[in-house]
């Protein structure tokens, strides 16, 4: 019998990036005792990697901007698959969320009249991104971190304990969301009762009991080989939600950022900010041609320039010129680069050229893009003020995520569970616009924190679900399984989690990557089944204290689950839209626009859980774990549809939908 420490809090936030910290601040300001659990050190979350800015229609750079324009751009970017209510709330609330950061000490770059400067970005009609050079994510995370500390200082004054009402459990990982029967509820009715965690430093297990859990764990990029994501992005929240009975939607939509570094190999995938293009950088192929003019899709024809002269004129005179096609939404640019490289017009290391050196003076580049200048100089020996960068697509973001209520961020189907930020699905539809992520984190982080707090406050002390010893035992067995992995069958090589991870990344990259085909995705599902079996043999060496091999073995469960969702959904959606491109179904299909693909854990407990015997585990792991169904989306509210011209709507909506309004 393992002795596991239990702590009681009101709200638990899993993840300490932008969404998690904003949720934590809100829950604490609602007066609730709030615990934040994060895999890394406090202040290191992946949000620091965001470079370009926060999209918010403050109208500082162009007074024509407002929430309606932002909403339209967001829906267009997502090819109208967005959960429209989320897109509406996001566009309306983003400015308040940015201004609030200033009152917490954030220092954005300024306009000449002293307001927050806003820059151009792909898919945004007006300059809209509040920014700090190209390190906006760092400013965001630091501001939220410092606000968290400010609240802790208030609590210290009052209680003598910094952590009395807001505590960050850093370098801890949640492996299970715990649910318990609801007292006085219907038979079988369950609600969230807490989370099961381990501390990386000691390997010690602990349970945080709380009626509200907010998932803010970010994305899934570490399932892909070429990615801009850090090791933390193993789809933990996605998997935890599935295992707790929630659904994931839109998992087929994975954003490949068009510009990642391609050389040297060890940095392949590291992000090159879209600001490079927003500030005037252009894409060229090996023939020196600005190829993006050849890739403007019909739905965007009216909005983008047809000649270089017009495109260049836009930076100074946006009223009389259309935008350069380098600023198309990310999915379009990524596909274009992919096509150029395939056609043999790539750069020496398999990308294309992104050039600012001929577009602006060296000192302007250094001021506006300091991190990029530094990154290329240090890691690739390239001086971007005098030569072009080589760039290519890199797995960057997952549009899919937990199926949530748009207003409250509550996970549908699991009482007490909330999700915000990248782990939540719907907001961005089939493709996210650059800059809309940081604003998403703040808008829905706050909403999740607020509603999680209100729900927790609504439960009376004894009305809270209680975590049972059996649950703890079972979660503990599961987490320890890598130390007693199943015996490798005769003649098979020993498995280690690092090798399995590499194979998973290679499979997803090659078979469910930027361009997809039926046969390849079918093959991917077979490989995933094989990897699930092999994962049961993957053992780890050493002990529980700060053991990365063990941590990876635990994360593999999550990556395998999430990868299966991506592959199954991608195989099922027989059209191309946003971050999902099918070679065998190259067109967008209006019938599919109305549909979400919903992933749930298969009814049959084929999982390798605590009750599974080692030998049996492999047999059971052979079968798929995910059920998929197609579900209609709620029709877009008429007043929101009214923000678009009919001619534009015809491109996306079915005739039936258009006549219905």
């Amino acid at each position, binding site marked *: 019998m393992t002795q596991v420490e239990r702590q009681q809090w009101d709200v638990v936030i899993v993840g300490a990036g932008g969404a998690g910290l904003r949720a934590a601040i809100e829950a604490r300001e609602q007066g609730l005792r709030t615990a934040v659990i994060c895999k*890394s*050190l406090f*202040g*290191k979350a*992946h949000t*620091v*990697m965001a470079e370009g800015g926060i999209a918010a229609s403050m109208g500082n750079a162009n007074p024509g901007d407002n929430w309606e324009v932002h909403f339209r751009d967001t829906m267009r970017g997502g090819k109208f698959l967005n959960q429209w209510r989320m897109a509406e709330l996001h566009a309306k609330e983003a400015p*308040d969320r940015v*201004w*609030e950061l200033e*009152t*917490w*000490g954030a*220092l*954005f*770059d*300024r306009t000449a009249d*002293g307001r927050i400067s806003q820059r151009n970005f792909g898919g945004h009609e007006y300059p809209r991104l509040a920014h700090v050079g190209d*390190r906006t994510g760092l400013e965001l995370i630091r501001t939220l971190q410092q606000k968290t500390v*400010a609240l802790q200082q208030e609590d*210290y004054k009052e209680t003598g304990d910094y952590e009395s009402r807001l505590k960050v459990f850093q370098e801890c990982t949640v492996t299970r969301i715990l649910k318990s029967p609801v007292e006085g509820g219907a038979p079988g009715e369950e609600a969230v009762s807490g989370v099961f965690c381990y501390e990386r430093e000691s390997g010690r297990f602990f349970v945080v009991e709380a009626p509200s859990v907010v998932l803010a764990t970010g994305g899934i990029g570490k399932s892909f*080989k*070429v990615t801009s994501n*850090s090791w933390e992005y193993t789809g933990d929240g996605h998997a935890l939600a599935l295992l707790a009975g929630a659904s994931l939607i839109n998992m087929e939509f994975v954003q490949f950022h068009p510009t990642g570094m*391609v*050389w*040297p*190999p*060890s940095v*392949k*995938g*590291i992000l090159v900010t879209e600001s490079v293009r927003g500030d005037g950088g252009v894409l060229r192929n090996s023939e020196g041609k600005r190829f993006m003019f050849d890739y403007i899709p019909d739905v965007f024809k009216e909005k983008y320039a047809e000649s270089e002269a017009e495109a260049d004129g836009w930076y100074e005179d946006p009223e009389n010129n259309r935008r350069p096609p380098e600023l198309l939404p990310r999915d379009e640019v990524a596909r274009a680069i*992919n096509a150029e*490289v395939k056609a043999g017009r*790539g750069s*020496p*290391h*398999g990308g294309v050229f992104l050039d600012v050196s001929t577009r602006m003076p060296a000192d302007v580049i250094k001021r506006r893009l300091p991190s990029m200048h*530094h990154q290329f100089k*240090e*890691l690739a*020996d390239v001086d971007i003020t*005098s030569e072009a960068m*080589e760039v290519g697509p*890199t797995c960057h973001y997952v549009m899919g995520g937990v199926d949530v209520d748009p207003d409250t961020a509550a996970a549908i189907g699991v009482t007490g569970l909330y999700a915000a930020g990248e782990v939540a699905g719907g907001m961005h539809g089939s493709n996210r616009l650059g800059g809309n992520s940081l604003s998403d984190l703040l808008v829905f982080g706050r909403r999740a924190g607020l509603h999680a707090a209100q729900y927790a406050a609504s439960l009376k002390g004894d009305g809270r679900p209680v975590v049972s010893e059996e649950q703890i035992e079972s979660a503990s067995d599961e987490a320890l399984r890598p130390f007693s992995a199943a015996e490798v069958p005769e003649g098979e090589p020993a498995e280690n989690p*690092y*090798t399995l*991870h*590499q194979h998973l*990344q290679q499979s997803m*990259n090659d078979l469910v*990557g930027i*361009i997809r085909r039926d046969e390849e995705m079918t093959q991917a599902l077979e490989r995933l089944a094989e990897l699930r079996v092999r994962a049961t043999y993957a053992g*780890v060496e*050493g*002990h529980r*204290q*700060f053991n*990365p091999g063990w941590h*990876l073995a635990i994360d593999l469960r999550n990556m395998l689950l999430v990868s299966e969702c991506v592959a199954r959904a991608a195989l099922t959606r027989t059209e191309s839209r946003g971050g999902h491109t099918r070679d065998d179904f190259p067109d967008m299909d209006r019938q599919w626009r109305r549909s979400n693909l919903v992933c749930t854990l298969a009814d049959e407990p084929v999982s390798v859980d605590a009750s599974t015997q080692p030998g049996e585990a492999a047999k059971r792991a052979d079968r798929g774990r995910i059920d998929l169904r197609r579900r209609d989306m709620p029709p877009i509210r008429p007043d929101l549809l009214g923000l678009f011209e009919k001619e534009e709507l015809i491109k996306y909506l079915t005739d039936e939908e258009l006549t219905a309004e």
Partner: protein
Amino acid sequence: MSAETHAGEGTGTHTRPGAHDAGGTAEGTGTPGAVSGGAPDSTGTSYIADFQVWRGDLDGGALEDFKVEVFEGEVVLDIVHRLQATQAPDLAVRWNCKAGKCGSCSAEINGRPRLLCMTRMSVFERSETITITPLRANPVIRDLVTDVSYNYTKAREIPSFVPPADLGPGEYRMQQEDVGRSQEFRKCIECFLCQDVCHVVRDHEENKQAFAGPRFLMRQAELDMHPLDAAEESGLDRKSSAQEDHGLGYCNITKCCTEVCPEGIKITDNALIPLKERAADRKYDPIVWLGNKIRRRNGA
């Protein structure tokens, strides 16, 4: 290596690691900065390097020898990952972004505090034995992972930004040249290399109580230079707080912190020295002294 050298390489004067990329799809091949630690898909030149990595915990430890393959363009963190994947799966190291933005992978390479992800292998001779040890000023947890809690404790002791009472959200107006100074300090990625190298605490654990360290003295300078910080109106003098409560006086401007800063922040020149000067002004300026007296009386 100069930019010209790289341009030369790009035109194919050597065997490129990503050579078969160009013929395939952009997404198909190549090695990411991944946990993978496997060899890059590479026909490029590689060599075997000698490494010594400190392994152990609070109870003690020692340098362990490794021979490990190194490929073109790699950084030290790639090598640590390769060790994990092939020779030492439980080797403990912190890292996150692998792009010099999060400040997690701080360690000492050949005795110098550096980020593992921003230290390229090409800066070393191939014959050189490269030694990686944990940050010396911190208690070790395991292998390359140290206890950084000193920094989080100090962060909490620095008085936070005080918003001006008369300005609501959206009403802040500041000029770029006025925010620029604090913005330089906000580039800090909290890698804590400066906190490790600073001689005040590097070998003097006993000074940690009284001394916040360069990072958090700089934080005070940052707030002090924030155009709208209303600390003074609230009765808080950040300069004397830095001097009296956070050990600014311990700093004797040897600039070690500036030298190791991976963000190139001029910690000493732009933050600590100005803060010292302003603290001194406070102390000795009779008008300031008088003003303080009056305000205190008014406030009382």
